[in-house]
């Protein structure tokens, strides 16, 4: 039996009822008296100089209250670091991608605002554009930013061990090129902001942000107001996945339009705007060379990456560093060399998306490992077991593994997938004719950071106010964008105070009230904010303890808080209701407030974006996924009816929430592998709606998803917990691609796996087979 009263239980999420009832308010559900509606004018060119903007006609249009352009924001630029600030709230001088924000309008209703956009006259001098990252690197390519010659946004080059010597020692070497396409975050709630400027210098903004404190700082700098005057109130968030981290033009424009008009202004993007011009996952070309021993032991990786950064840097340095870090995990790689270019192109800006650079690299590395196993006639499970990292391992680059259940995840995934029954190597299957529906199984492993350790402010803080009736409010700046962190953090409070989940209320983030927080990215909330909440709850508990000891006439160390009661160990008759204790504590002496506080940062130094040396996080999750695929050999269609996840998440704080994370990760991973893509022509998105883009429906995803948690009780994370929401998406792609090879004997090295690519690969294989046969005597 669990030692916990609340943690580890399958508790439904606390915000479930209001969301199911439709009473949970998202940004677009809010309105204020006198509110105006904003709309954004976007560039029709992928690359052009702005010669002149004439807003007169728009300004004179009845119902229009303000029109703003880039100049209204002065020289303000934003970005992750001082040296990477290359984004403007509205374009200045040039536009660098089709759909870039050029001007914005506030009017009495949306229709009027739209009409006004048509009246803004912009004269452009069209420049040649470059939308392919390899071309952007060539001499003479169109240049995006004057201060970034060669279109290089980020360059990282590093090496550990003796790679050349390792390749000399290797029995077998493979070199392959992989491509991972542009994938959108796919949240259903479009980006939205409702802003209210109050003279002389107060900003209140309701905006859909998974990491609201980026925008809080952005607004302070952009509008030159003190942080104390930036009030960012976080409504419910309709999914983020990395696409609602920072400040975006929609936010800056809503505030500027409010400032100009003195009225509240709401801007809600259309889905077409989100899909065509908002942020997305980095497309990457990965060239990977790997050397192994005969038995499949990895000796070295030599990896070169070209990442399509789009027109701005965003969080790109972290993406490029992450790809390197997770070249080193989850397999032992004694020697490693890496060079990556993040390249500017005339495309929308690439940022983090559920995995931040790690999917792309692990797709390449895990599929290539499968290729190697196939080439050498090794078993796919055994080659992973042989190379798996373990507790106490330190990567060549200096990442330290304090807890690791990778081997168990392999064992459990293989068992749940009934691998022994379903797996037959392709070499064996290839002798039989391919049926109409070919089936195959594949596995892949993953690792992920439990709280990305970035530079700057990286600590989470929690404040717990215990009320006299025994309930508590938890103030945290860590937002819940749907993953369920609000519930999990509330469970920690209830566990420590010995109350129930329904006794804890977690108000949404409000920057004037809740503590500053890095944000909900890099899988940090359960582990990092979780520890802060644990410390804060213990602090509150310690304020209650002396009174309890006094009232129960017991030693403080004998007192237990459980199920709304205060008990004395070994003396079942001495009991106090928790709410009597809180009432009495609050009234003690001349009265007091019970306010617990806790902060928790990271146990490792910041990630090194230059060399990649050292840790990327204080803890790492590990996992294995098995996919079952069916390939229609006549149409090329691939389906994934069944998928197994076995994940070492340290400790499952709430198994129901964990399953949701695993299943959602699979969904995103399957989408990335098979369905999702932006078809573009000269920087123009030809798939600007969810159907054309290919966001998976219920028919596109596995009907059966098995989620297994392996608990290793990590020494760092709260109650031993590590992440469970991103790592699982890392191995979905290679598990499916490996399964496709097992089904039809072809390697898909270019995502997504469209029917056309499958059919072509099948044709190529047949042609090759015929050629080999023909060549034989």
């Amino acid at each position, binding site marked *: 039996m669990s030692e916990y009263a609340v943690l580890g239980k399958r508790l439904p999420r606390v915000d479930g*009822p209001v969301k199911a009832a439709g009473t949970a308010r998202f940004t677009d559900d809010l309105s204020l008296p006198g509110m105006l509606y904003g709309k954004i004018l976007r560039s029709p060119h992928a690359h052009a100089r702005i010669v002149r903007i004439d807003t007169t006609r728009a300004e004179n249009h009845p119902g229009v209250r303000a029109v703003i352009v880039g100049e209204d924001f002065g020289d303000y630029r934003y970005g992750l670091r001082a040296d990477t600030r290359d984004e403007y709230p509205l374009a200045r001088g040039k536009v660098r991608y089709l759909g870039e924000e050029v001007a914005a309008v506030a009017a009495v209703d949306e229709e009027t605002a739209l009409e006004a956009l048509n009246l803004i006259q912009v004269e452009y001098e069209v420049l040649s554009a470059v939308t392919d990252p390899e071309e952007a690197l060539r001499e003479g390519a169109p240049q995006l930013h004057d201060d970034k010659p060669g279109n290089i946004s980020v360059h990282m080059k590093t090496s550990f061990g003796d790679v050349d010597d390792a390749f000399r020692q290797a029995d077998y070497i493979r070199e392959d090129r992989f491509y991972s396409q542009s994938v959108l975050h796919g949240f259903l709630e479009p980006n939205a902001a409702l802003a209210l400027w109050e003279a002389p210098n107060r900003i209140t903004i309701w905006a859909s942000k998974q990491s609201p404190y980026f925008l809080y700082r952005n607004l302070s700098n952009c509008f030159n107001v003190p942080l104390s005057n930036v009030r960012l109130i976080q409504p419910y968030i309709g999914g983020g996945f990395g696409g609602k981290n920072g400040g975006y033009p929609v936010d800056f424009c809503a505030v500027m339009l409010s400032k100009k008009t003195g009225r509240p202004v709401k801007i809600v993007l259309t889905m077409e705007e989100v899909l065509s011009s908002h942020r997305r996952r980095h497309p990457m070309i990965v060239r990977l060379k790997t050397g192994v021993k005969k038995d499949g032991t990895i000796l070295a990786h030599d990896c070169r990456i070209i990442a399509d950064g789009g027109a701005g840097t965003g969080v790109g340095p972290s993406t490029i560093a992450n790809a390197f870090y997770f070249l080193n995990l989850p397999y032992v790689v004694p020697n490693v060399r890496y060079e990556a270019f993040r390249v500017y192109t005339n495309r929308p800006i690439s940022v983090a998306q559920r995995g931040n650079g790690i999917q792309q690299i692990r797709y390449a590395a895990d599929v290539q490992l499968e290729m190697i196993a196939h080439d050498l006639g090794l078993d796919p499970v055994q080659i992973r077991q042989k190379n798996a990292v373990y507790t106490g391992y330190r990567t060549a680059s200096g990442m330290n593994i304090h807890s690791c259940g990778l081997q168990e995840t392999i064992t459990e995934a293989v068992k749940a997938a009934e691998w022994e029954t379903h797996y037959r190597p392709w070499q064996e299957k290839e002798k039989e004719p391919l049926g109409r529906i070919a089936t195959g199984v594949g596995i892949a492993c993953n690792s992920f950071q439990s709280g990305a350790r970035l530079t700057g402010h990286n600590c989470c803080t929690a404040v717990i106010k215990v009320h006299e009736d025994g309930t508590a409010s938890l103030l945290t700046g860590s937002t819940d964008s749907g993953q369920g962190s609000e519930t999990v953090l509330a469970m920690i409070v209830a566990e420590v105070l010995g109350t129930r989940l329904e006794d804890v209320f977690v108000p949404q983030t409000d920057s004037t009230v809740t503590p500053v927080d890095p944000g909900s990215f890099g899988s940090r909330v359960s582990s990092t904010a979780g520890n802060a909440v644990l410390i804060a709850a213990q602090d509150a508990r310690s304020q209650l303890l002396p009174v309890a000891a006094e009232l129960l006439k017991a030693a403080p160390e004998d007192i237990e808080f459980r199920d709304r009661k205060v008990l004395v160990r070994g003396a079942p008759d001495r009991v106090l209701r928790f709410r009597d204790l809180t009432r009495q504590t609050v009234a003690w002496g001349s009265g007091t407030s019970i306010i617990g506080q806790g902060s928790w940062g990271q146990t490792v130094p910041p990630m090194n974006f230059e060399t990649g040396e050292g840790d990327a996080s204080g803890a790492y999750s590990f996992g294995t996924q098995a996919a079952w695929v069916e390939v229609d050999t006549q149409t090329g269609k691939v389906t994934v009816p069944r998928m197994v996840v076995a994940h070492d998440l340290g400790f499952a704080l709430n198994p129901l929430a964990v399953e949701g994370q695993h299943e959602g990760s699979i*969904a995103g991973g399957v989408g990335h592998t098979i369905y999702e893509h932006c078809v573009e022509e000269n920087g123009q998105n030809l798939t600007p709606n969810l159907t054309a883009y290919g*966001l998976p429906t219920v028919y596109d995803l596995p009907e059966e998803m098995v989620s297994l948690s392996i608990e290793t009780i990590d020494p760092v994370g709260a109650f031993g917990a590590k992440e469970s929401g991103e790592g699982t998406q890392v191995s979905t792609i290679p598990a499916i691609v490996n399964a496709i090879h097992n089904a039809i004997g072809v390697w898909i090295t270019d995502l997504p796996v469209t029917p056309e690519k499958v059919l072509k690969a099948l044709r190529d294989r047949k042609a090759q087979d015929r050629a080999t046969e023909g060549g034989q005597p």
Partner: protein
Amino acid sequence: MLDQLIHLKVNGTLHTVAVPPHRTLLEVLREQLGYTGTKRACRVGDCGACTVIIDGKAVLSCLTLAVEVQEKEILTIEALGDGDRPDTLQQSFVDCGAVQCGFCTPGMVMSAKALLDENPHPDREEVRRAIAGNLCRCTGYAKIVEAIEDAATRLS
């Protein structure tokens, strides 16, 4: 274009509103009548977040003109339980973990309600078909299917 005065019966209440003829039911429900439980996501019929029930059928309110649905029984998510007293279907969504960010949820619940009202014992395929037009990025759908099946069991 001149506004038209129309009567809409929403969740049993008759509303009289002046609307331009091209305004969608979604906009009228949300902007003029305050039924913000119906979500506005894609606005072009791709995602199902705006699903309401009209005369017993699940309908996309973003593709429906308000002027077309006078005299009809319109049900929005607000017709079901509220946050304090969810109805059985909503409770199943909560208990089964079918809700994450919750943005698709009202539309999902309405599609599921239309199904169960007409067919109280749907099989797996019928459940999947009922939500095939409702997109969800967070859950992978398995728990949503489970929730609808759970509600069917609880309701019978």
